[in-house]
Every structure is written in C-alpha cells, then in structure tokens.
C-alpha cells in the first residue's frame, strides 16, 4: 500500500520514512552532461535491466503526461521536482504499490526511492537496497573501494543514501523551537526541512529530518543515527506537548473541533490553511480527541489537496480560485464520510 494510505509504527507523530539510493553507470557522464542520444541509450539500458529482473514496474514516460499529472507525481513524493527540470531524457519506474519509485536521468542516472508510513527506516532501506543490488548485478555501476558509489555531487558519494523522516511537531512549532532544532541538528550532520522540501518554510507543523553525510559511515550506522535523532526529537515534542496542550485542556479540544468545523463546511480553502487545519486535526487524532479520524486518512488528504493531484482528479487545469473550491469539496466530503462512519454519541 502507498505510504500515504496507511499509518505505520509511531504513526501518531511520524508521517513517513523515505530512503533514496543514488547509483550511476560507468562510461556515461552524469545527468546534466548527457547528450540526448546518450540519455536515451542510458534510459533504455536501465529499463531493460529492470524489465528482466522479474520485478514488476510500471514504466512511466513522463513526456506523455500532462503537467498536472506530472505535478501530482511530485506531490505524491514519487519524483523530485528536479526530475522535471532536467535537460536530458528522464523516466520513472514505479513499483505496483508505489512503495518503490526509480527515477532515471536525474542528477544521478538512477535514484531508487523507497517509502513507508511511520518510522520504518530499516525495512525501507532494505527494500531499496534489494532493488539496488539487482541493478548492480546487471549493469556496470560506478563504484570503487575508496569512495564507494560515485555520484554527481560530492555530498552524496559513498553510500549514496539519503534517509528522511517526516514528523508532525505542532508543540515545538507552537513554542517556536523549530529553528533551534534545525540549528542543533545541522551541527550533528542532519538537515531539517519543511513539508514541501528543500527551501520551504514549515507548513502544517510538518518537518522532514534527513542525514547530510554519506561517506565515512556505513548504511546501518547512518540509519541508526537518524533513528536516534528522530527518537530524541519525538521526546522533545512529547515534552513540549505537555507544556503547550494538556490532553484534557478544553482549549485543545476547541482547536481540534474548530478545525473539523472549518474543514467540514468551508467552500473555499487555500492549501496553506488546509495544511494548518489538518495539523490541528492530526493533533486531535494523536490526543484521542477526534474519533472517526485516523493519521492514515490525514496523510491521504494532504496529498489529495495539493494542486497537481486536485487538477488530475478534476481531469482539467484549474486556476487558483478553482483549486481552492475543489480543495474545499474534497475536505468537506472527507469530513462528512468520517461523520457517517462514527456512531452518533
């Protein structure tokens, strides 16, 4: 199942875990320097190797998709926005359950991504590594004993492994602690980003923590370091929650119910407002104040209300006001469905 359709371990505070492994073929320049002919040849070789591996991938030709469909792939975290900006030919191999996505022709020739709901780093890495081993056994991969897997950027060389965990940190956000967290974690070699990646501000109290270092550390040590950082951040958040909201605090219940009220009745809603309200609702789920709702449902809603996915399901391009309208429709229906599913008390 897709990560956004389920809630995994520690699912109350942790939205998803993600692994990315970078691999390159010998004998071809890195992504940005490929000629169109080399790019096409390279993609065919990788597709061929994956096709005969016995794994079942959907071979997606991005150039055949509408801009809305492409954007929706970004919103579902199946491809990076950079993949759509490459001058050379690119491609996507998608595992049937969407838990594995292989980007072809990004900055590195091959980027294997594995996604899981909740805090599930090691299984996610093992899944990606299995794919990587299959590819390594079929194609000549750029690797040496000194530096490991050779990548376009020296910040990825070695394991080529980037692991990230998306967490819901409403109390730390409320208490203004995210900046301090970012600063402290960066000293330890970890990056903190907002929901929309690289350069975004925190939205919906969601924060992604990932490793910066890829060389001079083994895969398992790297994952266990990140796991420990995530655990410590969880403890910080739990402590901050006691301070910011007590579970019986009427103000917290009020906040959660107001979020449900607005989500259930608004006719126009921006993505920003929706993400903040969904954060309040998620907090309600975590504190047991929102019966009928689940973390998995909120994960799924977060994707459904993004511009590309909205337009894809509408089947046509929508301008911003139209999107706000469609977004409100999606949210109202979801709240109504949850209401129907909950026996009236």
């Amino acid at each position, binding site marked *: 199942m897709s990560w956004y359709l389920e809630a995994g371990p520690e699912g109350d505070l942790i939205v998803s875990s993600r692994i990315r492994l970078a691999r390159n073929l010998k004998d071809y320049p890195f992504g940005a320097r490929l000629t169109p002919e080399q790019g096409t040849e390279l993609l065919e070789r990788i597709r061929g190797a994956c096709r005969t591996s016995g794994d079942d991938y959907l071979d997606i030709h991005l150039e055949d998709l509408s801009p809305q469909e492409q954007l929706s792939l970004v919103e579902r975290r199946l491809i990076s926005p950079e993949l759509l900006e490459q001058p050379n030919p690119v491609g996507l191999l998608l595992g049937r359950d969407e838990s594995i996505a292989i980007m072809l022709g990004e900055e590195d020739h091959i980027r294997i991504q594995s996604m899981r709901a909740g805090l599930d780093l090691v299984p996610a890495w093992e899944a990606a590594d299995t794919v990587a081993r299959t590819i390594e056994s079929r194609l000549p991969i750029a*690797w040496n004993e000194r530096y490991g897997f050779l990548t376009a950027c*020296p910040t990825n060389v070695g394991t080529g*492994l980037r692991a990230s965990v998306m967490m819901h940190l409403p109390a730390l956000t409320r208490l203004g602690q995210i*900046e301090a967290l970012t600063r402290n974690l960066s000293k330890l070699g970890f990056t903190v980003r907002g929901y929309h990646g690289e350069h975004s501000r925190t939205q919906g109290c969601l924060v992604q923590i990932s490793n910066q*270092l890829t060389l001079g550390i083994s*895969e398992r040590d790297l994952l266990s370091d990140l796991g420990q950082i995530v655990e410590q951040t969880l403890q910080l958040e739990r402590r901050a929650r006691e301070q910011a909201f007590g579970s019986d605090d009427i103000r917290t219940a009020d906040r959660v119910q107001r979020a449900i009220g607005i989500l259930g009745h608004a006719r126009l809603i921006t993505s920003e407002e929706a993400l903040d309200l969904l954060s309040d609702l998620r907090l309600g789920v975590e504190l047991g104040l929102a019966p009928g709702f689940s973390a998995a449902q909120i994960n799924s809603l977060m994707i459904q209300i993004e511009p590309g996915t909205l337009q894809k399901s509408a089947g046509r391009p929508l301008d911003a006001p139209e999107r706000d309208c469609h977004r409100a429709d999606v949210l109202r229906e979801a709240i109504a469905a949850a209401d129907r599913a909950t026996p009236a008390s």
Partner: protein
Amino acid sequence: MNCERCQRNEASVFITQIENGKRSEMHLCAECASKLTIAPFKAIWQQLAANAPLGLWKSLATSPQMQGEAAGGAGLACPACGLDYAEFLRSGKFGCSECYAAFQSRLDPILGRIQRGTRYVGRPLEGWEASILPTPPAAPAALPDTAETLDLDPARFHSLAPEQQDAWIRALRSAQKDAVAVEDYERAARCRDAIQRCLALQADGPDAPAGPDAPDGKEAAP
C-alpha cells in the same frame, strides 16, 4: 547556526581571518556577507547571495581556503569528460565517474569538510569480490625506503598504481613527522619538497612528460 550579523538567516558563509597571527572565524548568511566590504571577496559573496539555496557547497567552494585550493589544482582536468578542477569547485558537481580519479589528489580535504570521513565503509558493490582486485604484489616493494623517497624518480612514480602513489606520499608524510620529532628540520624540509613533487606529479597525471611505462590512459566515455 544563524548569521552573526543579522541573527536571522542561516549562516552559509564561513570567513576565516588571520590578523596578527590570531585566527578568527565569522559565520554569516550570504546576504550579509555580500554587504560587507571584504575587498577581494565582495563579488563572490554577491554572486553567492544570488545562489543562496545552493548553500553549503557554494560557501565552501568560494571560501578563501578553497580559492587557494582552486589555484593548487590548476591544470587538473578529467580525461574522460573534460571537466576541469576549477569548474568542479565552482559548480560542486562532478562531470562523470572518472572525475573522482582525475581529482583524487585534491579530494580528501574537501570530502573531509563536507562528509563524516574520506573513505567508504558501506557495503561493497553487489558481485564485487576483494580477491578479483589485482592485489598489487608490487605494493610493499613499491613503498620507498627513505633515501629513495627523497630523490624522487618521476618515471618510477608515474608507473605506480594510484593506491601505491598514495602509500608513497603517506610514507613521506610519516618520514616528515619523524624528522620534525627529532628536530631534523633540514630533512623535514626535504620531505616536504618531495611530497609537493609527488602531489604535482599526481596532479599532472600520466600525460605529463613521464616515463615510457605510464599507466594506460583511461578509455574515454562515449
């Protein structure tokens, strides 16, 4: 870490100043750094501010230390893709996997600053077996004894595998340390000169006027 000047933006520029032998470090965001009039670097920071999201690498690549680094690597280029060392520092990106070998003599200090270590400790490539690597029987023999080390024969040096060249340089470094330890500064200076000769030879690559038995040129990428 936040910028020391505005206390607001993330610091991405690290400036080391040495005044009267005293070293001080300043941590600034690209924006503030571009406003400061540190004469020769002003233009660099301005450029940096425009590219602020590229953050870490840009600040590293354009830092005064790395400017010196670029000068030291002048003339280094990848034989497979043609990328030269200065362009690598500027963009922060390699052109192809052969670039690692081409720039190897200069990579470790850079990797040391942006990574946990400078050597790979992850799992080996699938299907790779240590035994199939040509474990160079010549390696121990190639390690120079000290006398030979100092009177370096360029042809001989070029004929060594890269790992052996590295071992040679390491041996020189330890000889230098030993010399310093016994306060034999003349010898230490000779070691230092020899190290510099080796690094220069490594940087020049096999195409430099070397011995007849320079290692095979790498096959160019298609």
